[in-house]
């Protein structure tokens, strides 16, 4: 029971990342009809917003300490962050310590801008081109962005720790009446899950309860008719692209303490997120979220030793690596439009 609960929690965490990326992908496909293979790169850029903010907050004055030496035996250069000089040791250190949550504020305008530039600068030229062209150009863009990040920040993963207060773990099992140490879970992963739920709910509320969202939904259903009513639907869709980019970026920001940002993290998530979108149903926002969490939990269960052992016995090793694809194949064979997809989409 404890092992199952643990894997459910783990799966919800993985599912949170899949769902957030898939949500953005679906928003773009649903509004602009573009299959955006650069979406994983947006997730990565979000994580590197944390790295960038961390670097900014750690910009330092350098003083020579003649009493100490560096690794070459030269007098040691002691760095003191400007922020510590300005706000004092306690406040300055606290600001640096909270760089991940602070990066949310930093990442939102950055990601909106990145999304806007990407859509206006490149993707709008491919609206009327076949999906294959869109995939090629966005995949190329993803590689370019990845290499730019590699050139600027190097190939090494860069540690971006969560605030001190969230670094530990808590005994979830004891909290629900189980034995001690039965289900230990890190605080930050719970924060990540909660954050994802809030972002997903906000996007749905925005589309459901605002005039802007209503127009966008109408545009998704019938773009030409909305245009004929005198509404600049293209502008709204461009804004939606920016919002989708921001959602992916925020997923990356909050994910950065879980796995240190590195330049290929976007690619690690991209393919899986596409599977999630297709399984959920192309263009279906609830479908993306449902499939994201479902496949995350399934993947987590598949990594259990007992499950792996069972599948190894029937000659299916590394089931945890392929479970998502197997499930996707079955679902698409039975229901080509995906779990909650619209009739006609991906069915011909």
């Amino acid at each position, binding site marked *: 029971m404890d092992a199952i609960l643990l894997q459910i929690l783990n799966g919800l965490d993985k599912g949170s990342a899949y769902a957030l990326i898939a949500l953005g992908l679906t928003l773009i496909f649903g509004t602009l009809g573009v299959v955006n293979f650069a979406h994983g790169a947006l997730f990565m850029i979000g994580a590197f917003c944390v790295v960038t903010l961390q670097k900014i907050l750690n910009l330092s004055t350098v003083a020579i300490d003649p009493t100490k030496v560096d*690794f070459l035996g030269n007098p040691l250069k002691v760095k003191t962050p400007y922020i510590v000089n300005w706000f004092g040791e306690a406040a300055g250190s606290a600001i640096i310590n909270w760089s991940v949550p602070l990066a949310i504020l930093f990442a939102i305008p950055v990601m909106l801008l990145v999304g806007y530039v990407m859509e206006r600068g490149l993707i709008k030229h491919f609206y009327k081109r076949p999906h294959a062209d869109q995939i090629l150009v966005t995949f190329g863009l993803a590689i370019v962005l990845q290499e730019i990040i590699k050139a600027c920040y*190097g190939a090494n993963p860069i*540690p971006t720790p969560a605030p001190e207060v969230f670094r*530990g*773990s808590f005994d979830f099992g004891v909290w629900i009446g189980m034995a001690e140490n039965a289900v230990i879970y890190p605080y930050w992963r719970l924060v990540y899950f909660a954050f994802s739920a809030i972002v997903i709910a906000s996007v749905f509320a925005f589309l459901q309860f605002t005039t802007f969202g209503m127009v966008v939904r109408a545009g998704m259903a019938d773009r030409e008719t909305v245009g004929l009513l005198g509404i600049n639907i293209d502008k709204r869709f461009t804004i939606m692209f920016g919002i989708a980019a921001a959602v992916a970026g925020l997923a990356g920001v909050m994910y950065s303490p*879980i*796995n*240190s940002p590195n330049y290929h993290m976007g690619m690690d998530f991209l393919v899986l997120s596409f599977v999630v979108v297709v399984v959920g149903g192309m263009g279906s926002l609830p479908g993306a979220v449902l499939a994201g969490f479902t496949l995350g939990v399934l993947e*987590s269960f598949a990594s259990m030793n007992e499950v792996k052992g069972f599948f190894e016995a029937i000659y299916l090793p590394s089931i945890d690596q392929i479970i998502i694809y197997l499930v996707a194949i079955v679902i698409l064979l039975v229901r080509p439009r995906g779990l909650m997809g619209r009739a006609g989409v991906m069915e011909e």
Partner: protein
Amino acid sequence: MSKQLTRRGVLKSGAVVGAGLTMPTIFTSSAAAYTNEPKGGTVTLGFNVPQSGPYADEGADELRAFKLAVEHLNGGGDSGMMKTFSSKELKGNGILGKKVKYVTGDTQTKSDAARASAKSMIEKDGAVMISGGSSSGVAIAVQGLCQEAGVIFMAGLTHSNDTTGKDKKANGFRHFFNGHMSAAALAPVLEKKYGKDRKAYHLTADYTWGWTQQASIAAATEAKGWKTVKNVLTPLATTDFSSYVAPVLNSGADILVLNHYGGNMINSLTSAVQFGLRDKQVNGKNFEIVVPLYSRLMARGAGKNVKGIFGSTNWHWSLSDAGSKAFVKSFGEKYGFPPSQAAHTCYVQTLLYADACERAKTFNPCGVAEALEGFKFDGLGNGPTEYRKEDHQCFKDVLVVKGKENPTSQFDVLEVVEVTPRAQVEYKPDHAMFKGGSLGKCNPGA
């Protein structure tokens, strides 16, 4: 009758035919004697390192070291360890008077990609030696290719027992230590620190290095009284280890052994710390984590999580021997930070290759191999070292290290707690973990 064979006639004909066969060889032997015999005033070396994938960090440092070695061989810089190397053949005028050029490739930490880039460097760029690595799977694949092609492979960072065990090759040489040597050095320290009554849970990278590393450390610790509760294989491409780490605390184990390296180790150790393993008590003992193969680069990537965690390493920049100091100065002044063990190994391998060519007075791989076999040297940072003839494995002292509790800088993340003498880590060539396969014969290629 006149056409009958006579003794004199046979001798004359034999002499003519023999001369005829020999003459072209005399004039063209240098053209086809061995693969990629250097022509003109340069010799090309091929550096095949991971520039992407989980070991990209190590690969970048390896490449820096290769470039530094080439600079020193060509007479640039401060000569680094060429001044401290016990062999005095290298003069800073290239190798055998030829200026050293190099080409690079990206292994992507994948065997097929590594073979493809090594093949290209041999066939298109004329590389006479291939070096590099950072994954034993890659090293074994490229070593096999070099054997077939007839060039020397100077292994970079490869720690699997199999590289000089069942997959050893006559054209391949390894300066780096291996899983068995790590375990032999580490087990007594772990016993002393954590006691005999321990239960270990292993997470192991699912390829040749992980398998042999896990088998070695399990055998060495079990010999000290530990029990191995479980060994779980994790794919090399795994980035999120939470599913593997989460069940550990509830498994009855009180030690987690991470047979992971590079980005994998950073992520698995981070997950283990996030799941609170280091803060818990199991079986009445503090839960502990062990990382059998450490490097400064991955220790830095894992941040504060490495504090107090034991492991082994091939070399560390804080060593105070003349060779290590010369290399750290040379590398540090050029790049602004100390070299990693990966950088050290690759630098040393390039110097050792160049030196062997000088001593053999040829680039012919068979001559070079003969010069390296049984070669004893000092002054390259690991103390007295020997390339064993039987399997081309280097034998030297092994360092046991620990994540530093109070680092004084971003580079000061590991401290050497013990230098294990060579005698304690040495094994016979037919040791159970190294048996099988054959060194075969040196292949000069063309």
